[in-house]
C-alpha cells in the first residue's frame, strides 16, 4: 500500500515536471517568435524608407534636414554592429519618421501623388505592425517572466536554465511625438 502511494507521488511529480518544462519551452518559443515578428517589420521599414524619401524629396525641398536624419538613422540601423546600437537607431528612426509624417501634412501636393500615398499606407501599417508586434512581444515576455519567477515553476526554470527575457522599451521621445493620422479619405474626429 505504502509503496503504491510513493509510486503515485513520483508519477505525479514527473507529470508536473514534464508539463511545467513544456509550457516554459512554449512560452520561450513564443517570445522568440514575437521577436521575429518585430524584426520582419523593422526590415520592411528599412526597405520602404529610401523609396519614400526619393518620392517626397522633390516636394519637400525645405525639409532636407528631416529627410537626411531619417535616411541616416535608417542606415545606422541597417549597419548596426550590435543589437543595442541597432535598437537605438531603430528608435531614432521611429521618431524621425513621426516628424516626417507630421511635416508631410503641410504639403497638400503629396496627397495627390498616388505613389506617395501608397508608400505612406505601407509605412503607416509597418509602423503600426511594429508597435503591435512590440506590444505582443512584451505580453509574451511578461508571461514567460511571471512563470519563471513564481513558485513552483521557478524551481523547474532554474534547473533547466530558463532566463527572464528583456522587455522592448518604447523610446521616451517617441511618446512625445504627436500622433499622426495617415488614413485615406475619411476625416477623423478627435
Amino acid at each position, binding site marked *: 500500500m505504502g509503496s503504491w502511494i510513493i509510486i503515485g507521488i513520483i508519477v505525479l511529480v514527473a507529470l508536473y515536471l514534464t508539463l511545467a518544462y513544456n509550457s516554459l519551452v512554449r512560452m520561450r518559443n*513564443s517570445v522568440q517568435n*514575437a521577436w521575429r*515578428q518585430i524584426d520582419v517589420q523593422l526590415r520592411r521599414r528599412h526597405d520602404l524608407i529610401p523609396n519614400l524619401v526619393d518620392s517626397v524629396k522633390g516636394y519637400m525641398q525645405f525639409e532636407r534636414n528631416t529627410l537626411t536624419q531619417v535616411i541616416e538613422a535608417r542606415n545606422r540601423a541597417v549597419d548596426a554592429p550590435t543589437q543595442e546600437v541597432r535598437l537605438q537607431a531603430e528608435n531614432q528612426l521611429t521618431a524621425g519618421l*513621426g516628424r516626417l509624417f507630421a511635416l508631410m501634412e503641410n504639403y497638400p501636393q503629396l496627397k495627390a501623388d498616388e505613389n506617395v*500615398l*501608397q508608400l505612406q*499606407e*505601407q509605412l*503607416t*501599417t509597418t*509602423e*503600426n*505592425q511594429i*508597435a*503591435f*508586434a*512590440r*506590444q*505582443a512581444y*512584451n*505580453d*509574451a515576455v*511578461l*508571461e514567460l517572466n*511571471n512563470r519563471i519567477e513564481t513558485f513552483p515553476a521557478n524551481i523547474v526554470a532554474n534547473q533547466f536554465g530558463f532566463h527572464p527575457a528583456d*522587455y522592448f*522599451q*518604447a523610446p521616451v521621445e*517617441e*511618446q512625445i*511625438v504627436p*500622433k*499622426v*493620422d*495617415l*488614413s*485615406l*479619405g*475619411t*476625416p*477623423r*474626429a478627435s
Partner: protein
Amino acid sequence: MTARHADFRELERRNRRQTVTLVFVFVVLFCALGLGLDFVIGGLRLSDGHLVGFPFLTILALIIGCVQSLVSYYGGAALVLTSAHARKLSPDSPKHQMVLDVVQEMSLASRMPAPRAYLIDDPAPNAFATGRDPQHSVICVTQGLVDQMDREELQGVLGHELAHIRDYDIRTMMMIAVLVGGVSMLADFFMRWSFFGGFGARDDSDNEQREAGAMVAVAVFVLALLAPLFSQLIAMAVSRQREYLADASSVEFTRNPRALLRALEHIARTESPLANASRGIAHLFIVNPLEGAAEDGEGFFNNLFSTHPPLSRRIQRLRELLRERMDVPVTVQSSRQS
C-alpha cells in the same frame, strides 16, 4: 495580463465543450427523427413490448447526422461565406489595401495567425469572423464598413473579430449556423413525409400498435416543430455574452477603447440592415444585421430573442473602460499611431 490570458484559455475550453454538446444533441435529434420515421413509414413496430423490424431509417439518420456534422466542421466557413454572398477581398483600391493591412496589424496585436479577408458588397457597415480554428479563420467585412470607417475604427472592429477567433467563438457560432440550417431543413422534410406518406398508409396491425406508433410519431412531430426554435434560442443565448467579451478583448489588443467605441457609435447612428443576412447567420455579425434589430429595447423579451446585446449597452461599457483608462497614468507601451 496573465489573468486575461487564463480567461481566454477558459473561454476556448468552454467553446470546445459547447461545440461537442451541440454536435451530440444534433446527432441524437437526428436519430430521434429517424426513429420516428421508422415507426411511421418504415418497417419498425412494437409487438408485445418488443421491437420488430429493422430500424433502417434510424441508422440512415445516424449516418447522415455524422456526415453533416463533419461537412459543417470542415466546410462550414465556405457555406457561411456563400450564404452571405461574400467574395475574397483583394487590394484593388487604397481602402481595400488598408483593410488588408489592418487585418495584419490586429493579427499581430492578438498574436493570432492572419485570417483570410472577405468582402460583402453591401452599404451597411458590419463584419463577422468564422472558421473552425484560428489557422482556418476568415474575417468578412462589408463595403459599407470599408467606406465609412477610418483606420482607428477598423482596428477596433477587426480587433473584436480577432477576439472571437482567439476564443474559438467562431467555431461554435459556425456550427450553430450550419446545423441550425440543417435542423430546419430536416424538420420541413419530416413534416412533409408524415403528412403525405405517414399516418394513413398503414393497413394491417391492431390498435395498440397503431397507438404506440402514433405516440412516437407525435412526439417526434413536436420535436421537429420545436427544433428550429430551440436551436435559435441556443444561438441567441450563447452569443450575447460573447459580444461583451470580444469588445473587451478588442480594447486589450488596441490598448485604445476609443477605437471600438467610435466604430460602434458610428454603426448605431447608421442603423442600416444588411440585404443578404439570413436569420441563420445573423448571430455571427458584430452588430445584428437584421431589419429592425438595431432598436435598443432592453426588456426581458427583447433580451431573450435577440442574438446581440443592445448597442447602447455595449457603447456604455466601452465608455466606462475609456474613463478608467483616462484615470491611469500612461503605461510602458501606450504610444500608438493610427
